[in-house]
């Protein structure tokens, strides 16, 4: 009984060890590719900021924009930190904003 349990534990440990070695090998294989593409782009444009959020410039280029200025990029821009979270805002919100309509119509 105990021997069977020990064999099961040893087998599980062996499987995990193989999986860990495979992950380490995969990690090693992934590294050089990213570096070349990133280096080439940054040396070409001088822009090292990350394109994690692409709509608002204070998230795209935090070094050159005022953080937290909502709607500074386009009137319907809702991309405030943390950028809408997991669910996209309703599509209807991306039409012309009320302020634009009001401005066009005048007082």
């Amino acid at each position, binding site marked *: 009984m105990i021997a069977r349990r020990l064999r099961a*534990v040893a087998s*599980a440990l062996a499987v*995990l060890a193989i*999986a*860990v070695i495979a*992950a380490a090998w*995969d*990690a090693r294989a*992934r*590294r050089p*590719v*990213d*570096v*070349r*593409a*990133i*280096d*080439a*782009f*940054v*040396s*070409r*444009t*001088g*822009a*090292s*900021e*990350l*394109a*994690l*959020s*692409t*709509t608002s*410039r204070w998230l*795209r*280029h*935090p*070094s*050159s*924009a*005022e953080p937290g200025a909502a709607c500074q*990029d*386009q009137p319907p821009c809702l*991309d405030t*930190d*943390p*950028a*809408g*979270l*997991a*669910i*996209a*805002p309703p599509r209807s919100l*991306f039409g012309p904003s009320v302020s634009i309509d009001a401005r066009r119509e005048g007082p």
Partner: protein
Amino acid sequence: MLGLAFAVALFGSALFVVESLRAVHRRASHEAPSLIVSHLEGGRPALIGPDDGERLRDLLGVRTITPRVWGYVFLGALEGNVVVFGEARGEGGSRQDVTVGPGVARLLGLRAGDRLALSTPSHQAVYRVAEILPREGALVSHDAVIVDVREARLLLGIPEGRATDLAIEVFPPEEIGAVSEEIAQRMPTSRVVAQADLARLYELTFDARGGVLGALLLPALAALLLLAWERLSGLSAEERREIGVLKAVGWATEDVLAVRMIEAGLIALFGTVIGLLVAYVHVYAFEAALLSRVIFGWSNLRTPLALAPATDLATLAALVAMVVVPFTTVSTFPAWRAASIDPDRALRGP
């Protein structure tokens, strides 16, 4: 064990993403200019003047000063901004060729040789897509469109002689602080951003977002620990009989406690390794599909997280300290209680 693996996978995914992004930005800053100088008007970024660069050329340590022309162009087809960079190609360079980032190419279905129309209030033109940047560099180039600097001026409405900002190379790097101070004195209306400032900003951003995510996951960890406590406190009839037999044949309480602790340790080991493997596959094979939108939000031009692993042993140790140590700790008391039951009572049943 599955609960522990789940908790480790959640925390591990957040840690892997944050660490890999840190590594990407560190890498990107190797090739970036030492200083970026922009002009402020009324506290807001404005175009830099034609003479500003010349005023800085005699500074000791300044190797090159490159006026950069770049800005944002709203693409209706994408319902989002792309970043247009101007590139000096000389008189012989083609003005009609553009290089596009992988995100723009994918969303617009562009291939090399296709046409791309860019339209702003100041200029409209159709360009030829000469090159598509590789997907591996998407974290910096996803939404980029590189055009000839003359076209960039027309598209962005930046007159000849003016620029968005100045990229300054300083050598040796020890001079960056002194050069930065001197620029601030000579150009009081400028904003000088050193690579170190940018690196600090990103470190803080990653820490903040990773921290928020970690805080969100704490209730899940608490629930797991409570569950582990409940599970380990209650002994099944078989376990109770097994302990009774062991004690009847001469095992001391310490021996039974040691075995129970080894059991808890094995569960923690298996759970941790399985959780880390799940986190690894989730982040690096599936681009953190479950977490990326929570961390980075929603965007039309959402950047795929094609990350390379960059986790060090200290990060893994932090993860173990955060999840595995509390789990092993809550296992101790139930283990001691199980080990100290009376063998006679254990064999006879409750």
